[in-house]
């Protein structure tokens, strides 16, 4: 069965580029290509995709809102965020909202298709800078344990070790050798870490809301 892909991108040039990359791959099917968050949410209900290719800078809303909506209503759908440069801050925000992958905008057609396949197969990319930031986020959670924050949001020692090694600039191959797992398992771990990051950030939000008396 083909992987259904929805593209949300307001810039026509890139929308064409992404659409062509998806259409060129026989294993992928394009369910739609829209330029606003509202249209994306409408289409998500009509034709649920497997992978959402999302630009963060949308004209009608922040891309992270779309991610949050997807995570809440279509949790089976993977979100692949498109960024201009390796902008860690925005990537982290997207991951916390529920994205599980990110892609550089200038990636070639092959790279785009490969990334969609990898993400759907259960693996996520991670750069040392991103790993370092996630470690910092999670560390504050473990040093200040809160009852409200969900238990599964806490990283396992192995996941922490993986992040630590990634942050040190080690390659997936090297990490796989050190942890005695295959490079595929490494990227699968990364996806799990991303999900935990999203749960953790939601837990934080719930905790903050509780503190402020909103819930």
């Amino acid at each position, binding site marked *: 069965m083909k992987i259904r892909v929805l593209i949300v991108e307001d810039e026509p040039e890139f929308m064409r580029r992404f659409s062509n990359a998806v259409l060129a791959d026989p294993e992928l099917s394009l369910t739609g290509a829209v330029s606003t968050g509202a249209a994306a949410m409408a289409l998500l209900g009509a034709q649920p995709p497997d992978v959402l290719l999302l630009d963060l800078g949308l004209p009608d809303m922040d891309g992270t809102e779309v991610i949050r909506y997807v995570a809440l209503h279509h949790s089976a759908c993977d979100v692949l965020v498109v960024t201009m*440069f*390796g*902008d*860690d801050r925005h990537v982290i925000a997207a991951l916390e909202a529920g994205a599980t992958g990110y892609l*550089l905008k*200038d*990636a*070639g057609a*092959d*790279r785009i298709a490969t990334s969609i396949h990898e993400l759907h197969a259960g693996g996520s*990319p991670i*750069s*040392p*800078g991103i790993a*370092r930031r996630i470690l910092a986020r999670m560390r504050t959670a473990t040093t200040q344990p809160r009852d409200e924050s969900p238990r599964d949001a806490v990283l396992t020692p192995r996941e922490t070790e993986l992040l630590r090694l*990634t*942050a*040190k*600039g*080690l*390659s997936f*191959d*090297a990490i796989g050798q050190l942890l005695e797992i295959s490079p595929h398992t490494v990227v699968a771990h990364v996806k799990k870490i991303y999900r935990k990051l999203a749960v953790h950030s939601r837990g934080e939000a719930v905790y903050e809301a509780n503190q402020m008396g909103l819930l």
Partner: protein
Amino acid sequence: MLVALIIGGATDARSADQANESASPQHALRLGASGLTPPAPDAPWQSVTLPSVAPQLGAAAPQGPTWFRIDFKRESASPRPWAVYLPYLYGGGQVWLNGQQVASVPESTDQLRVRWERAHLLPLPDNLLRDGDNELMVRAAPALGEHSLRFPRVDIGPVVTLSEANDRRQFWVRTAPQLTVLACLIVSAFVLFIWWRRPGEVLYGLFGLATVFWGIRTLTFVIEVVPVERWQLWRLVYLAATGGFVVVMALFAMRFAGLRHRGLERALAAYWLIGPVWLLLAGSAGEPLVNRIWSGGLIPIGIGIIAVSFWAVWRERRWASAVMPAVLTLATLAGVHDYLISWDAGLMERVLPGWAGHRLFMLHHGANLMLLTMGVLLSLRFTRALTSLEQLNESLESRVADRERSLSANYLRLAALERQNAAAEERQLIMREIHDGLGSKLFTSLSRVERGDMSHLQIEESLRACIADMRLALDALAPEDHDLRTALGDFLFRWQGELEAAGVRAAWTIDMPDEAPGVPPHTTLQILRIAQEALTNVVKHARARQVELRLQRANGLLRLEIQDDGLGAGLAPGAQGRGIVNMRARAERLGGTLELRQDAHGTCVVLSAPLASSAA
């Protein structure tokens, strides 16, 4: 309280007078006779009222020993023993009852000088007492140094009735002085010790000296018998103590009021010395003259003390400063009281009937009160000084803390400034890098495109190079902690896709200790550029299947090695030319070297750069 006690004592004494059983004769017969046995009844007795002073003021000749004859009645035989109570008998003497000597108080002799301050309660043997009329004869010797002879109103009655008055008087004239001497000794030792340790606290020293002098002076009331050979020495000590007390009090009052007058202080000290020296030179015979002139001179000093204290009150207008003059006034009143009792008992008798005859002198108690007040004032001063010292300490501590805070704030500001400077410098370097690299590349491309000199493929390649350049700068700037490992990791992570797309297997090893110091962004940028140049060459020219990148740090040297299995020596010499020159220039900018090894098995680029100086 002291005053209340004294007045209470007086009333008690009077109530004892009025006890039914006892007798308190107002009248007696007096006869000046030096004989050691009572004169005959037909001798020329003179009638007197008790208490008696003889001769009256103004008489020329000093009084010799005198006999007093007192008749009293005892209503009926009493089961209780009787006694005669003499509140004072300064010069000593004898007591005879109905022709028999019943008691004697030693008088001054050739060997001993006496002056009895104590009261005398002398028992009257029951077998000599008669029901009805009795005759008491008392021989009174003149007191030493006194012009006239004083004889008290006597009380005759049961011992139990009289002992109360006796005990009370004994307390005031005997016990109180003893206590005073003891207290003066202890207090002065304590205060003088403080002065010894802290010579700057002159007030303590003066107070200590005043206490010592007062203690010595009060010894007069404690030591009633002095051997003749030491008599003059004793008078000398007494005179010196009296003068010293007054002079020291004057100095104290001045200092306490904040008056400092060195000349006046010296003059007072000199005046104090004059008295004892004069007495020493003149001998016993000169004592009355010394007393009249030198001791008289102390009176104006005393008045000066009072004036100074009142002036201090007026100036300071505080309750604490009013205490001293109040007590001084009280002491002065006590002095006036004593003077009146001594010299014009009649006036006192009219004001306070029955009181003058007791001859209870108040000045000493007033002086005690004065010393006590001085002590209290000094203690208050002391505690105030301690409190202000504590406050000073606290404010000092807080000031030190403030200073520390401001110092550390300064330090932080300086550090921030330094960081800012360093960051600005870094920014400058990176901006120049972007200007020279990305900027010139874009301009060159633009001008070539305008000339129509670039193919579609060349334009794509050029733009990709520009984006890569841009990324490199961002990578170098990204890690907040300037960790070269993260920057290089991000760089390689991005390159991995490109290398794979080019069919090159990439492996990288980063071997840097965790505690390695941060590498400034500009240095990171140079290293990344060298790596980028090398990897670009691998992809473009080498036709390699595998590339290996190793980053190491050893002995303060950074070593970056990029090894491929491409054409190596087979490569055309010009192909890598400019790239290599660029890499060498960058290595030199880092203060390091670049080594290029090419052989049949491929190419190896090795960068060695010192890490410590790479910040410059």
